[in-house]
């Protein structure tokens, strides 16, 4: 009796897949060509106007104008004041993790300075990783703040209404200061391209065995579903890596996307993301009866991945049900990792949660695939 899992058999399977991949030159060329094509096509971003963006307020003033401002922010549809923070550091941390879109700082003595006509600064920090997500909200901010304060300008202060705004709104775009949408799109594109090609590759490679009749032989050999799965997935991890290299090179040298964080983090999480996608493809192949069905399933999967992951539309602009779907798609998490590391300089601890989600998705999908894999021709 041999074990349920054997390294030798798995290596045999991997070797076989490599040989077949090498013979399939057109597919190989396509896998390298697709990323380049997509980069060109998606170079231009799509805008949108999301609302209810999570906002935190640091109120060091505790005066009437500060309170009025918070009330006005809460009343507007653009901002959801989710919490009051006590320190700059806490706010920074929340912004880096993507928990906040905006951080409004009301400086000490704000109310008094307004009353004295000192035109104090009101600081708003925005997570501008995705410029489309913040532009609408920022445009309304000036007016919103002025209106908020106006009712309190009574008596002698009424004079201030006439002149220039009684305070200076200072907007600080973090992470993507120039609001270049390509900075946001190009790293996201890496995830999109990988989803499209990786899922399709494994979905087709198993159904191809069925269509060509070689499955009958494969099933009669002492190979376990896990060995077959690992064997099918491994060669494509390398192909996926080639794509990552192509896109990263293009991001850095063609689109001049800034690289704030550590490239190694992107490279490492890419491996996990590639494997997760290949496992999804393998699962599709266990559901599909032939190559056509496998292709249809892939396209069916591809659509929500593009629309609901935050690639095309800002994640926060989506209704809750769509966000929930987004959460179970690997692309959503990978997008956050890549944007976080490249544009915000996220470190290992910042992305750990997203990496964990990717690992969880991979685990769940693998279990389904191995369970669903039909060992017979029934």
């Amino acid at each position: 009796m041999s074990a349920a899992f054997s390294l030798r058999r798995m290596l045999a399977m991997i070797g076989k897949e490599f040989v077949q991949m090498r013979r399939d030159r057109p597919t190989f060329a396509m896998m390298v060509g697709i990323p380049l094509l997509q980069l060109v096509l998606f170079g231009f971003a799509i805008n949108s106007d999301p609302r209810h963006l999570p906002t935190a307020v640091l109120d060091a003033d505790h005066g009437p104008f500060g309170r009025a401002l918070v009330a006005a922010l809460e009343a507007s549809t653009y901002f959801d004041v989710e919490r009051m923070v006590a320190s700059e550091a806490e706010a920074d941390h929340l912004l880096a993790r993507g928990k906040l879109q905006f951080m409004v700082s009301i400086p000490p003595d704000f109310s008094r300075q307004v009353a004295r006509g000192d035109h104090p600064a009101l600081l708003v920090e925005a997570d501008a990783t995705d410029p489309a997500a913040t532009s609408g909200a920022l445009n309304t901010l000036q007016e919103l703040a002025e209106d908020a304060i106006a009712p309190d300008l009574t008596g002698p202060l009424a004079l201030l209404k006439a002149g220039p705004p009684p305070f200076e709104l200072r907007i600080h775009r973090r992470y993507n200061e120039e609001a270049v949408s390509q900075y946001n799109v190009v790293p996201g594109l890496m995830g999109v391209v990988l989803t499209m090609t990786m899922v399709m590759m494994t979905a087709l490679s198993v159904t191809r065995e069925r269509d060509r009749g070689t499955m009958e032989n494969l099933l009669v050999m002492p190979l376990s579903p896990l060995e077959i799965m690992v064997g099918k997935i491994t060669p494509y991890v390398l192909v996926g890596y080639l794509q990552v290299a192509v896109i990263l090179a293009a991001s850095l040298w063609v689109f001049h996307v800034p690289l704030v964080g550590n490239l190694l983090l992107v490279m490492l999480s890419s491996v996990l993301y590639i494997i997760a996608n290949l496992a999804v493809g393998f699962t599709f192949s266990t559901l599909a009866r032939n190559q056509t069905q496998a292709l249809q399933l892939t396209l069916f999967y591809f659509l929500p991945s593009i629309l609901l992951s935050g690639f095309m539309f800002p994640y926060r602009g989506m209704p809750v049900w769509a966000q929930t779907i987004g959460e179970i798609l690997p692309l959503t998490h990978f997008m956050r990792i890549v944007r976080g590391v490249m544009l915000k300089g996220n470190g290992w601890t910042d992305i750990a949660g997203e990496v964990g989600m990717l690992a969880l998705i991979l685990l769940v999908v693998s279990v389904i695939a191995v369970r669903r894999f039909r060992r017979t021709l029934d």
Partner: protein
Amino acid sequence: MSAPGESGAPVIAVRGLTKRFGGRTVVDRLSLAVAPGRIMGFLGPNGSGKTTTIRMLCGLLTPDEGEGTCLGLDIRRDAAAIKRQVGYMTQKFSYYEDMSVEENLTFVARVYGLSGIRGHVDAALERLGLADRRRQLAGELSGGWKQRLALAASVLHAPRLLLLDEPTAGVDPKARRDFWEQIHQLADDGITVLVSTHYMDEAERCHQIAYIAYGQLLAEGTVAEVVAGAGLVTYTASAQTPRASVVELARRLRGLPGIDLLAPFGAALHVGGGDAALLEQTLAAVRADAAFSWRRDQPSLEDVFIHLMGRSRDNFQGAGL
């Protein structure tokens, strides 16, 4: 290893195997027993359920009903263990056409965990006579060579039971003879073989044959037993004059009571029936015609199969299907 014989527990022992596809019964309560080292020929018309039966034996299909063992292992519970000891050659070529002959054999050797892979592969290539074409893609081989490659690959791991599904379809006579020589050699080494075929001469090379039609086992035994068991009586009518027409004679006989079998062979007509008395009675009238000479002879295996097939169709339709 032991010489071929009835000794030892049967390698294949299944009872009441039944398989349905979408409500249609394709294999119907089939029972088979094959002793170690024997070659069992598996015959039957197209679509009679041979491939389906073989797939159930090696665990590729789950029977809807019935039970049994292969190599002493339960076909339902121990499919994985059976697979390791069985060599299965599929009817349709199922090795990788985009891999070379050598790569295919190496893959098989590695999956079965053979030690000394190079040696196994080289020996197989040598035996096959494909040593100089080892780097050729399997898909570029001619049909007959593909069959030879498939056989070589399916015996690479020294299985104890060989299931061959029409292994010689499209293979030239010389290669077919080599093929059978090899099968006999394997059986002599103690390997049990179940081989499906449409060729009568191949059936006659088997120790034992089983004939199925519409999923039902109609006859089983040695060739002589099957021929005798059919109870078929046959005559050959040979034309005596140039003007005597075999086709004309066949037309006269068709549909008469007792005539179950009519087959022209050149200037002769083969006539047979399951009911000897009725056949004699019908023929008595025709035999007066001096244009033909009549001779009683031995029915061939083919006569028997065609007769069985006709009879089972009658039963099948009679059953209201």
